[in-house]
């Protein structure tokens, strides 16, 4: 698309060249949402019950997100303002998260606490990252019965991973980049 004014053409060519030359990541780490097709039937159920599109999305999300993840998000909200170390054995908690040295954390430790999430005993750690905000980590003492790899809800992003010490850990974050940074640092 061009304009008739030669001065505009010159500006347009210059700006277009600069904008189209903006560097982009080598490859976007975008994957299609998982499990969608397992829940198409449920989405139809939501539709025929007369729910709005927005309501249908919420219902779909509720069905498609593992129960323990929903419980973890609720737990994280509840303890969002709690600070400090409240565990009997901090070293054991650190080991569970794959931390032999607190300095390994890519952010500032806000909370470490013994918790029960969705009926499962877990160590709860909340870490603040300058770039990405808070990441809540739950290291489960036993492997939860309902595990999927990762996903996104209206509450944020979530992902299960295995820590260096072999514990199953669930990470929650509002920003995907914070989640990725944390998991890269802690995963096996």
């Amino acid at each position, binding site marked *: *698309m061009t304009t008739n004014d030669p*001065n*505009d053409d010159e*500006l*347009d060519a210059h*700006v*277009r060249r*600069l*904008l*189209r*030359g*903006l*560097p*982009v*990541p080598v490859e*976007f*780490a*975008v*994957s*299609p*949402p*998982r499990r*969608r*097709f397992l829940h198409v039937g449920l989405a139809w159920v939501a539709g025929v019950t007369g729910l709005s599109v927005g309501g249908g*999305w919420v219902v779909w999300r509720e069905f498609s997100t593992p129960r323990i993840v929903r419980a973890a998000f609720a737990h994280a909200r509840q303890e969002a303002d709690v600070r400090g170390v409240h565990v009997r054995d901090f070293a054991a908690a650190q080991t569970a998260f794959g931390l032999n040295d607190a300095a390994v954390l890519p952010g500032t430790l806000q909370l470490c606490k013994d918790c029960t999430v969705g009926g499962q005993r877990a160590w709860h750690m909340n870490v603040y990252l300058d*770039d990405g905000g808070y990441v809540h980590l739950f290291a489960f003492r036993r492997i939860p019965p309902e595990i999927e790899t990762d996903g*996104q809800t209206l509450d944020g992003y979530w992902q299960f991973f295995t820590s260096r010490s072999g514990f199953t850990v669930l990470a929650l974050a*509002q*920003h*995907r*980049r914070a989640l990725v940074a944390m998991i890269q640092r802690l995963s096996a």
Partner: protein
Amino acid sequence: MGERDHAQFTQWVREYGEFLYRVAWAMTGKRATAQDLVQDTFVRAWRARHQLRHDGAVQGWLYRILHREAIRNWHAREWAEDWNNDECEHVPDRASDDAAQLDLIEALQALTPHHREILVLFYLGDLSYLEMAQALDLPPGTVMSRLNRARYALRQQLGEEYMK
């Protein structure tokens, strides 16, 4: 997910990922925010892909999702507030070493959001005036007049060299 669906999604990312990323970066002035926005846009688009009426309109459709996502997404809350206030003070990400590109990004951030939006879409999208009008939900005549005003505002921001 079937291989065919996965292939289609991958094709979208390959074909439009760079366009959306550059649009989001130019609009928000922040690369990290842009990356989050693009990812969220693709996820939303995939979930709503049945709403796409024909394949030829994918770029404009993805742009509209990106725009809505930016407003909705709390990652871009500050930008959305700027949008509503019709002013913007974002500083570009200084990680890039291309001064001209950074100057341009900075100049765009100094424009009103509506001017910034139309310029970014004009320069980065291969869209006709009609397609731009559809993407921006504006009459085609408004697109042309707003584009001219936006271009003039950009010249002012870029400095005397461009004020011919």
